């Protein structure tokens, strides 16, 4: 192969030029790199604006999960103690994050868009027990103007078994 000195110079130029560019590394944890919009990080259980939980305890996420990381136990809502607008809510909701492979199937299978893999990737544990995220850890805070669950609601305000959703965006 014939050597072309011009090529050599071009390569050196690339090296030289990058010395003048600003660095691409981030000084984590002081500085955090923003993630892509569709990044799949730690799950969150969402709420409606009024504070009710979106999760209706259907366990479809648990059924879809290829890693068998989710455990759901359901119970029935009453108007005295209402957690979700449906008939049923998750009385126990746990994700074992050591098992989870962040595939997002749970999010896909959820009929109410309750479980969402958000952008938090800072999950670390010092024991196996800690790797199990329980419902109180996964649930997002109550929005302003919303009320804490369980809440008391006037009888008959929620009558659908599965709350009617707007079309997925």
């Amino acid at each position, binding site marked *: 192969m014939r050597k072309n000195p011009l090529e050599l110079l071009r390569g050196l130029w690339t090296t030289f030029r990058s010395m003048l560019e600003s660095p691409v590394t981030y000084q984590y944890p002081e500085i955090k790199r923003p993630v892509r919009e569709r990044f799949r990080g730690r799950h969150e259980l969402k709420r409606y604006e009024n504070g009710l939980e979106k999760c*209706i*305890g*259907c*366990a*479809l996420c*648990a*059924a879809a999960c290829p890693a068998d990381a989710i*455990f759901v*136990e*359901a*119970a*029935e809502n009453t108007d005295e103690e209402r957690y979700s607008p*449906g*008939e*049923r809510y998750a*009385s*126990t909701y*746990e994700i074992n994050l050591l098992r989870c492979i962040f595939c997002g199937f749970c999010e896909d299978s959820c*009929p109410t868009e309750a479980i969402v893999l958000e952008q938090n990737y800072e999950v670390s544990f010092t024991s196996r027990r800690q790797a199990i995220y329980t419902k109180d850890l996964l649930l997002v805070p109550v929005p302003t103007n919303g009320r804490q669950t369980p809440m008391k609601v006037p009888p008959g305000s929620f*009558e*659908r*078994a*599965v709350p009617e959703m707007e079309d997925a965006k």
Partner: protein
Amino acid sequence: MTKSLVTLTIDGIEVSVPEGTLIVDAAKKVGIDIPVFCYHPKLHPVGMCRMCLVEIGRPARDRSTGEPIFDEDGQQVIHFGPNLETSCTTPVGEGWVIRVNSEKAREGRKQIVEYLLTSHPLDCPICDKGGECPLQNLTMEHGPGTSRFLFDEKIDLDKHVPLGELIFLDRERCIQCARCVRFQEEVVDDPVLGFTNRGRRLEIITSSDPGFDSYFSGNTTDICPVGALTTADFRFGARPWELNRAASICPHCPVGCNLTLNTRREARAEGRDVIKRVMPRQNEHVNEIWICDKGRFAHHFASSIERLTKPMVRVNGDLVQVGWDEALVRATEGLKDALGRSKGGLVGIAGGRASNEDLYVFRRFIEGLDGHTVLDDNLAGGDLTREMGVGRGTDLGQIGPGDVILVIASDLHEEAPIWWLRLKQAVERGAELIVANARATRLDRYAAHIIRYPYRRAVQTALGLLHAVTKRADLSPFVGDKSLQKVAKLFMKAENAIIFYGREGLDYKASEALAQACASLLTSTDHVGRANNGLIAVWPRVNTQGAWDMGLQPIPSGLGEILEQASAVYVMASDPVADDASLETLLREDTFLVVQELFMTPTAELADVVFPARSFIEREGTYTSGEHRVQRFYPAVLPLGGTKSDWRIVTSLANAMGIELNFPSAAAVMLAIAESVPNYSDLTYQALTIAESQWPHVGGESLYFGGNAFKNSQGLGVQVGPAAEPGEPSEVALTMPVEESEEDGLLLVPITRLYDRGTTVLPSKVLHPRLERLHIELNPKDASHLGVIDGAQVEFRMNGKRFQLPARLVATVPEGIALMPRSLGVSVVNPIPVQISSVE
């Protein structure tokens, strides 16, 4: 009566089925699934849902001659009509050609699915049926995938309608198939459900008070093809695919219904495995695909937090928890010490709740110590049912025309609901039923003859019947009226005859005399030793028959005498003190008492050593049903820590006491049983697991067809025959009844109610609203003499104690009688005269 065969072709497969078979069944028999919603193989077809549409081709015939037409190839011409037809209402015809999967038929069914879903709420994510739902499955298989109907036009109906305390209805999910309505009407004759309104507004309602008042209500949730009917017990409990399953046997009555226990590990139960629901498991010889609501809902006792989990020994007068080793040492020393003393020996008391394995090992142990075993029960005749019980191959589902069944001194609807159901069905097939009891019961409405006798004269009645058959001179004092003669004639010409006898209004000795009279009636009419013939006792417990077979039997005079002489008493799965408080003093004295139990019962409270036993959901074993069918149950959940199976507790203790009883497993105990109990000789655990395929298909692939009952792949059990060979002349000794003098006051008679308040029922909270409350039932005439009105408090004295409780006036209670349901708080073992007075 054999029906002639009809041959037809279904989707190219030629099939021959008996005349009158419906196309849908014929197809199912050769493995072609025609989807159905309203059709159910155990109900009459109604053709309501149109899901089963097929093309039916009939051989064309010449109009003038009526001769079949052939084409030029010599093939018969088949004429297909223009319309699809319902295969669930059309019986097969000779030479027909059925197209199930043709383009046209598939299209027709597709439209039906689309139509059924026009107003279906699509609750699948949270619906209890989701995952095992015929509508879901058939929609996936036959549905169009999209709908031309507008989502917003779905109508909203009530989603939370308690039909009763046990069953909830979701009106939106109902597809109006009427399976539930028809089940209640046709199968169990409790027509408490009905339709109201028409068209899309059609609704299921209940017409009873309390709502959905039927002992069989849970079965409607199994055959409802959608999640419209759910049980209070399982509602939102788990998704079906999350459940584990184990085969089991219902522990509540002598029918021995086959069950599947669905279990799951729960956070709510601190990570323990718990039973989420009890489902029927198909056994067409026993319970078909049904169970009663007691079997379905009264399972919570097994996982109750009240269960004993540690052995206990008495230290300074109190029971304290100790380890197994210490408890075994204490029991060994205590027994040795007590038996070394000069006073009487060891008495072993066991109940009919224990399995065959437990009871066999128990008898070997007690007898090894020269002790005496006693079965804690007050119905006699287990020796007779062993000799003259129903023959091998008996199936109440086969009883029909020409067969006779006598039920005497028992209220089957309350004592053994599935037997009640099977006898009702036998009558519908043409069998003749004779019901003899001192009062009206629910079985009466199917009886060809009702024999009414005064309480205390059951034996005389049976002997009268025997006299009418045999004309034996020594029985002439019991000659009855014409109706007895009629019944006797029926017996004599019956092809098959079965007698069910119970204990209502009888003490132990009278029940023995009754059993003898009934057995004698069967032998003298030659109705023993064959299939569908023989004697069945309506035992109070699931395995009382097994206990007799294992060599235990009650003491006619009661436990008092023998306990007085005992220096050590060993109690397994029985609670004699609860039934008879007077035994308390006998056990309290210097008797050494060992108890193995699930709960801290009144008997266990008195014990010196208490061993915690496993319940039927945590272990394996076998029960022998009243029909002498030996059936296996399997462990469903991990045992409660610290508990052991009854038979293992006994063998550990036996070995510590120097009696060789070594069995590695329950199966090994069964081998030993087979060696020593004659009619159990060919039993092994393997033999009990044989399950040939049964009709109709249920569960799994076929849940759209027969419902959600589980298919039986774990064994139909083995019916062990009676010891008597057919034709063997067997003379039954008779005991003549002693005439009892009439006493003043009312005769207090204990009766059985299905939903009592016993230890195995009470922990099931879901049943609480339906449990019987403590009361006494009086005839309105007696009540007015006493000045008692319905609901008023009355009092009486019995065995030196005063009782006060509300009275209920019931017209079917005979005059001079007061009925007291068992296990509600006041224990009455035998009928006893009492003076009842009203409380101001």
